[in-house]
């Protein structure tokens, strides 16, 4: 009985991890948007007197 249980456990763990990969991708897209906006205005600041 022990064998399949271990197998099950690792299995759910793998699923649990991979199952939030869309979330990770989404927040990183969000993060890049924040960076692009900020850097854009920062360069405007540098360009102006």
């Amino acid at each position: 009985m022990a064998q399949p249980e271990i197998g099950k456990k690792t299995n759910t763990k793998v699923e649990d991890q991979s199952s939030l990969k869309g979330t990770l991708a989404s927040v990183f897209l969000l993060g890049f948007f924040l960076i692009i906006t900020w850097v854009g205005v920062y360069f405007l600041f540098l360009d102006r007197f």
Partner: protein
Amino acid sequence: MKSVNTIVDRRDGKLVMAHFYVAFIALAIGGLAGLLQTLVRSGKFELPSWTGYYQILTIHGVVLGLVLTTFFIMGFQLALVSKTSGTLTAKQRKTGWIGFWTMTVGTVMAAVMILMNEASVLYTFYAPLQAHALFYIGLTLVVVGSWIDGAALIMAYASWRKANPGKPSPLLTFMAMVNTLMWIVATIGVAATVLFQLLPWSLGLVERVDVLVSRTLFWYFGHPLVYFWLLPAYMAWYAIVPKIIGGKIFSDSLARMSFILFLLFSIPVGFHHQLTEPGIDPAWKFLQVVLTFLVVIPSLMTAFSLFATFEMYGRSKGATGLFGWLKKLPWGDARFVVPFIGMLAFIPAGAGGLVNASHQLNQVVHNTIWVTGHFHLTLATSVVLTFFGISYWLVPHLTGRVLTKAMNKLAIIQGVVWAIGMTFMSGAMHAAGLLGAPRRSSFSTYGGSEQAMEWIPYQVAQAVGGSILFLGIILMLYIFINLAFFAPKGEEEFPVGEVSDAAEKTPMVFENWKLWIGITVLLILFAYTIPFIDMIENAPIGSKGYKFF
């Protein structure tokens, strides 16, 4: 959880609806004012001679920024507590009614003064522009009334804790408590400047007012004000939307932690609204900039939690691939779609906010129309669309009616119309702001200046967006009236999210209010004491009042 109500008690429902009536009347009046502003600013339309741009703008700011928000939020929080912690006692309900009437009387007083053109000082009422004393008294009553409403919430929370010793309070009650406590700590600032500075000065009891101290007290309040608007939307995003889509709350503990972080860090940051002003040492400004950046962290956590909730739900329905879960979301349900548009709007809103708060970068955008574009994303889209999304189920729930299929469809259209209108208006505001176009300004060619001419096409785009938005407001009002008075009788669900089974027990430390309020006060003292003493010690002679309107 024996005290959870399936249906909010009718008597509590009436109290909540009273708040909502005022809020939606405010939406009607303020929306009309907003439309007029964009039309005037396009240069193609002139107001009749008995009113003026700044009178209209004062109405818009006061009625939408202060009245709609405060009434809706207080009503919503009362509903949350009544639903999740049990029906209010007679005493609590009576306290709620006293709060409601105090706020309403105050609103009417302020409104009369604005209509008489005795208070065209905009919703920020910066001295030394001086409004009629009744305007300040009216605003004071709105704040005091909100404290009384808050007292009703705190009493209800206390009775729940007493009846359930050793247990963490229901998540939505907890969140309403955090927001109420933050509001009370924050409003002390605005109450102080109004009661001790502006009111005696407008009554002629004192001749002069310290302008910088007044502004500092105002902005001590002004930033937590925006979080007071935002947190009820977060409550819906964290704890209600998951139920609507059929999923689970990602993590109860993380949700509570992010709310506590908001309590701690939303107040000691008011200087980020005063970055370009004299009389404040830049090192203290920078310190508050750092604290401002800390309050970004709970929003980063929120973003993750929301995406995770959606993805977990989608995958439980068999979604595959990186973004397959998006397709599984209930795109036909207005209770989800409308707040979801609000969430999306928070992405550009947050990006703009980071720019605003970045110390010297503020010089690029300060008091340009970019700022107006920014808070029409945060407040007038993220927050307001979430409030609309809440109304679509809460109003029929409270009035014993249902959201019909037809109304649900109209509600989705409403959300989409808003998104389109705001893309035009806010987008054009951001762009014109980067070119230097000032905010809070009627149409002007500035003597035919070439730069000012470049701004005009953007102002026309704002008027296009404003007109579309006004259509969205009419749709919203139509749906509200339907749900309040005409929709078929029935039982509309009050969705309250459940925590996913995997999440662990909620630590009790979150309910330790002495601890959290203690840290909040320490942070405020740390960020404000020295610059505030400097301000008073080095104060110039005060200002007499001016009525330039």
